[in-house]
C-alpha cells in the first residue's frame, strides 16, 4: 500500500500549504504577500493535478492538452489586463444626486421660462421629438401635436417622465435627471406647452 502512504503525505502537505497561506492572509496589504499566496495556490494545484490525477505519468501529448488550456487562458488574461484592469480613461461614476443638489441650493426654482426652454429642447429633446414636435410621425418619440393625450397630462406627471424616463409603447424615453437640472426640465416643459400644446 506504499501508494496510499504517498497520497496521505501529499494530502498533509496540501493542508500545511493551506494554513501557511491562511497565516499570510492577515497582511494582504503588500503585493509580495499576495504573490506568495498565489504561488502557494499554484503549487497546491500542481500537486493535485500531477499526483492525484497522475498527469505526471500520462503520455506527453496529453500533458500538452492540459497545458494548452492553461496557455489559452494566459493569452486571454495578458491581452485584456492592460485594457480592462487599468481601465484606461474611465470616469469614476459620480453619484447623480450631487448634480441636482448643487444647483438647487444656489437658485430657488423659477417658473418655466419658454425662451431658455427652447434652447434646452433644441439641444436635448429634438433628437427624438423633432423640431415640429411630431417625433417623425410618432415613430421615435411622443407626438405632442397630433397625439393630444400627451400634453393633457399634468405638469407633475410630465416632469417625472422627463426626469425618470419612461418605457412606453413606442420605445424608451431616457431619464434626463442626470444630464438636465430641474430648472432646465421645467423650462423645457414650458417651451413644449407653449409651442405645441393648447395652453
Amino acid at each position, binding site marked *: 500500500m506504499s501508494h496510499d502512504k504517498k497520497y496521505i503525505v501529499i494530502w498533509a502537505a496540501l493542508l500545511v500549504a493551506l494554513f501557511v497561506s491562511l497565516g499570510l492572509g492577515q497582511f494582504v496589504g503588500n503585493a509580495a504577500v499576495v504573490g506568495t499566496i498565489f504561488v*502557494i495556490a499554484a503549487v497546491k494545484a500542481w500537486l493535485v493535478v500531477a499526483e*492525484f490525477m497522475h498527469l505526471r505519468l500520462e503520455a506527453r501529448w496529453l500533458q500538452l492538452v492540459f497545458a494548452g488550456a492553461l496557455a489559452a487562458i494566459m493569452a486571454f488574461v495578458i491581452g485584456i489586463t492592460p485594457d480592462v*484592469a487599468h481601465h484606461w480613461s474611465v470616469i469614476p461614476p459620480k453619484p447623480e444626486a450631487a448634480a441636482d443638489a448643487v444647483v438647487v441650493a444656489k437658485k430657488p426654482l423659477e417658473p418655466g421660462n419658454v425662451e431658455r426652454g427652447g434652447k434646452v429642447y433644441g439641444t436635448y429633446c429634438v433628437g427624438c421629438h423633432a423640431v415640429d414636435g411630431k417625433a417623425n410621425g410618432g415613430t421615435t418619440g411622443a407626438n405632442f401635436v397630433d397625439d393630444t393625450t400627451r400634453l393633457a397630462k399634468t405638469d407633475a406627471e410630465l416632469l417625472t417622465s422627463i426626469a425618470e424616463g419612461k418605457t412606453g409603447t413606442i420605445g424608451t424615453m431616457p431619464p434626463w435627471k442626470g444630464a438636465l437640472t430641474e430648472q432646465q426640465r421645467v423650462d423645457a416643459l414650458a417651451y413644449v406647452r407653449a409651442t405645441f400644446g393648447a395652453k
Partner: protein
Amino acid sequence: MSHAHAAPLPEERTSTGVATGKVALWWFLASEVAIFGGLIMSYVVCRLAHPEWAEEAAHTVSAAGALNTVVLLTSSLFAVLAHSAATHGDMKKASNLLFATVGGGLVFLCVKAYEYHHEISEGFTPVASLFWGFYFFMTGLHGVHVVAGMTALTWAALKARKNEAPWAVEYTGMYWHLVDVIWIFLFPLVYLASAS
C-alpha cells in the same frame, strides 16, 4: 495497455496506447479549465481595476472558506485512495471511499449554504454590487460542478459496489480533483485577498 494497473477500458480500441475514455476526459477537463479560467481571469482583471473591493470582500466568511478547502482536499484524498483501491481490485473499499468523497461534497455544500445565508441576510446579494455578482457567480458555478461531481461519484460508487465499470472510479475521481483545483484558486482570490 496504458498503465501497469490496466483496468479494463471503456473502449477496446486505442491507437495511442491511452484509453479512449481518458483522452476524452482530459479534453473535457481542458474545456472546463477554459470556462473557469475565463471567468476567474475576468474576476482577477476587474479586481485589479477596483481596489476598493477589498472592503466588500472582507464580508466573506474566510473561516468557512478555509474549512471548505480542508473538506475538499480531504475528499480529494478519499477519491485518490478509492482509485488506488480499485487498481488493486478491492472494489468494495473503493466504493466506500467514493461514498466518503460524496460525503465530503455534502459537507462542502452545507458550509456553502450557511455562508450564502449569512451573506444574503446581511444584504450582500448578487445584485448588490459587481464584486458580489462575481462572488456568487463563481462560487455558484463551482457549486453546480460540485453537485455534478457528486452525482457522478455516486453512480461510480454504485457501479463499483456491483464490480462494474471500474474505470468510472478513476474518471469521476479525476473530475473531482479538477473541481478541487478550481476551489484551490477560488479560495485565495475571493476569501484571502480581502482582509484590508
